């Protein structure tokens, strides 16, 4: 490309006077530097964000210049008492970190299995026409504003959980567990049947699958019965938020991992088919390993989406700054970093410069640092995978 333009400018300078040529070159440089400066605005924006968030976060750890407040730092990261309006304020953010981690984990548990299997389906299983129908569904899921998700979680889902929690849980469990167990039964039946001589193999596979199927149905029924007996005291809890965040993170996970799967390319797939692998074997043993880093990047992006989400968690997580007991209890309300910033800033705004104003910036700095690191990691992964695929 440079060669083309260089030759064209040479040709032009042949036709024009020297001065005009110089003017033109000057214009080009000016134009380019103008473009460059506009482009670097976004870079400046990132720098500014880091600078200003840090600038307002520092006074929390360093009330006077040079005097680092270790006590504040220790309290911030290790205590769970979050009473910013108390005098003196208590800023133990551990429960907030825990809340964020908890709902993110929940969201990932929802989004990753669903998202990756949907991506596989989109890239390797579905016909082109069907894909054209499914894609808009994903796009619309991604387009719905977060406050609408939050509204749904608060006004529709939370009362449902509160009034009919057990039934919802049991139903959800059935929906998730039934296909997984079904596939597991079939695979286990096939493996079991492989030990039998050729002529009895089909019968053996069928019986084994049937027995396993009945067993797992009984298991499902037992667990479902137990779940439906549960009652949930508050509909606004970590579980609710996890489900909704999972749905919100789904489009990201699906589209990024689908890109990764597509990038694997025809050659690998055809090679695998040529060696006699079935489609399932090709997907699981060839395509997925080749795309694993891209899928990892998708998961990271999903994590970032879940961590950074504000409105849903603010509206539907219950906003109780506590570590649930026991710590894995998803049915208790939690409070996350983002919700705390959004919720407390309204009051802290009037006292700009106070400790409770700065502590919110400290929370934001943690979020920012986390997303920055995650971003670097995912970029590195994508770069590595590109290199790898390029070599293969």
């Amino acid at each position, binding site marked *: 490309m440079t060669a*083309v*333009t260089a030759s*064209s400018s040479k040709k032009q300078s042949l036709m024009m006077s020297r001065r005009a040529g110089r003017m033109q070159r000057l214009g080009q440089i000016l134009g380019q530097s103008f*473009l*460059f400066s*506009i*482009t670097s*605005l976004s*870079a400046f*924006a*990132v*720098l*500014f*964000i880091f600078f*200003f968030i840090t*600038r*307002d976060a520092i006074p929390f750890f360093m009330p006077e210049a040079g005097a680092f407040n270790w006590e504040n730092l220790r309290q911030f990261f290790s205590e769970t008492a979050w009473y910013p309006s108390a005098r003196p304020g208590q800023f133990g953010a551990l429960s907030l970190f825990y809340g964020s981690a908890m709902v993110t984990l929940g969201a990932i548990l929802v989004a990753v299995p*669903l998202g990756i*299997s*949907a991506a*596989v*389906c*989109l890239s390797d*299983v*579905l016909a082109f026409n069907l894909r054209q129908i499914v894609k808009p*569904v*994903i*796009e619309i*899921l991604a*387009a*719905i*504003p*977060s*406050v*609408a998700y*939050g*509204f749904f979680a*608060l*006004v529709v889902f939370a009362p449902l959980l509160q009034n009919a929690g057990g039934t919802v849980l049991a139903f959800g469990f059935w929906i998730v567990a039934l*296909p*997984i167990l079904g*596939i597991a039964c079939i695979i286990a039946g096939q493996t079991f049947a492989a030990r039998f001589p050729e002529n009895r193999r089909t019968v053996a596979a069928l019986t084994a699958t049937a027995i396993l199927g009945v067993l797992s149905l009984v298991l499902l029924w037992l667990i479902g019965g137990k779940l439906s007996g549960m009652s949930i005291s508050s509909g606004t809890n970590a579980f609710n938020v996890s489900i909704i965040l999972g749905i919100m993170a*789904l489009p990201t996970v699906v589209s990024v991992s689908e890109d990764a799967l597509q990038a694997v390319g025809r050659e690998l797939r055809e090679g695998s088919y040529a060696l006699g692998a079935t489609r399932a074997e090709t997907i699981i043993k060839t395509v997925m390993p080749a795309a694993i880093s891209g899928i990892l990047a998708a998961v990271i992006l999903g994590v*970032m989406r879940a961590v950074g*989400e*504000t*409105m849903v968690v603010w*509206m539907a997580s219950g906003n109780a700054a506590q570590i649930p007991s026991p710590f894995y209890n998803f049915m208790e309300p939690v409070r996350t970093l*983002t919700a705390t910033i*959004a919720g407390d*800033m*309204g009051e802290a705004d009037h006292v*700009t410069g106070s400790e409770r104003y700065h502590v*919110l*910036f400290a929370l*934001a700095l943690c*979020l920012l640092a986390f*997303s920055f690191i995650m*971003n*670097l990691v995912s970029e590195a992964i994508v770069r590595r995978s590109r290199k790898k695929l390029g070599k293969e």
Partner: protein
Amino acid sequence: MGFFSILVMAAALILILYPIISRGLSAYIFRATSEHRRVQFTEFGIGSAQEIERETAEVTAARQPVFDMIVAHEKDLKAELQEAVDQVHALAAAEGGFLQRSLERRLKRAHADASVEEYLTVLTDVRKSLEGQFDRERFTDVITLITERKQRVEVETKKLTEMKHALRDLLGPLPGDRITELLRSHYGQTRWDRCLHYQDKFLYRYEWDYSNPELSGLKMRTPRVEDFRGTDLEPAFAYVRDNLEAMMQPRLTLYWQFLTTDSRDAHFFGGIWPEVLGTFYLTIGAMLFAIPIGVIAAIYLCEYARPTKTVSLLRSCISTLAGVPSIVFGLFGLAFFLNTISVSESKSVLAGSLTLALMILPTVIRASEEAILAVPFTYKEAALGLGAGRWRTVLTVILPAALPGILTGIVISMGRAAGETAPIIFTAAVSVGLALSPLQTLNSPTPALPWNIYNLCTEHEAVDEIRHVQFGMVFTLVALVLMLNIIAIALRARISRKLRG
């Protein structure tokens, strides 16, 4: 498994959209009562005066029997008290002297037009003064009579007050009520679904039963008519049950003014225009800043930038910007645009737009970049080959060819800017406000759909009363965003058709 997860996604989409659309539409299309039309006429000047007058007359006529029953019932109660008053009169006449004068003076307030409550205060007063006499034994009979009647009537009045309260919630102020400042007390229920809800609350009393300590309280439902067995008021309940339609005159209405009128009394009445306009301003403002910067950056990155260290740093910066959580953008907007360079005195649409622009910048850049890269290389070669300069090539060949793709990206990021809440909380949004003129956007905050959805469903004083407004807002926002996305999808479909030939 894959099919299953796609099914789950589609199901989730339907599950989420269904209540939003169905209940959201009911903010626009619903059975509006005569109260709704009255509100529309008095508050917004919509509708014809004669029509409203005629309807009000009809509705009042239909409601009159209930009001009459209340008056009759109150008369009964008063008659019971009147007996006690008569006794006191007799006593006063018998006693004479100072006691007579003082009692008569007190009794004067219990005239024919006085309310039951006034009667009760008079009797309390009288009893006190009788009890204060040093030889009160002589009055024991009268005091007992007063006490007994008062107790009975007080119980009845309490029930009556409760019932009138429920009726007021349903129909609006009763005849003879003092009108308060609060606008919501001027009108009855404007929607038929709310009418049915309040009819139920009128017909039944709901109480929580905590007698069983093992349960967390049971909701008990008793027909209110039980309270008024054998009184003049008894038929009122059957009347309200059977004739509510005549009393409210519900009519299926397309209430498109919901979109174009502002709200009265904290969204109890009226529409969502200030919010819609605020969202519109914020989105347009954000696009004004983001489009030029984003498209220019994309042109530079695609056409001019050589793969140097600086450029790859630029690219990582852009992807970092894309990963910054939205709430952090909000804090940054507060700390930088408002507290540091003070683009405006307080929160303002301008500050909000700038923050939103920053947030959607990476999306715009990426989409434009993709669109520019998708332009076939032959186009560029042809243009350069014809002797066009680089600038000219970009402006006249590449940009027009990439325009639909760029537009798609822009439309999608518009949807994102319209729906995003966190960045505008601290920079632009207020919960109550009027529609702004374009000039005011430079220095005043605005209500905006996403923020007011949050605000109405968490911080409003009567969350359950205005569910339809909340759903209407969510529906409007989602419809707006989805419309933008459908435009984008259609645009892209056209491009891909064109590219495939």
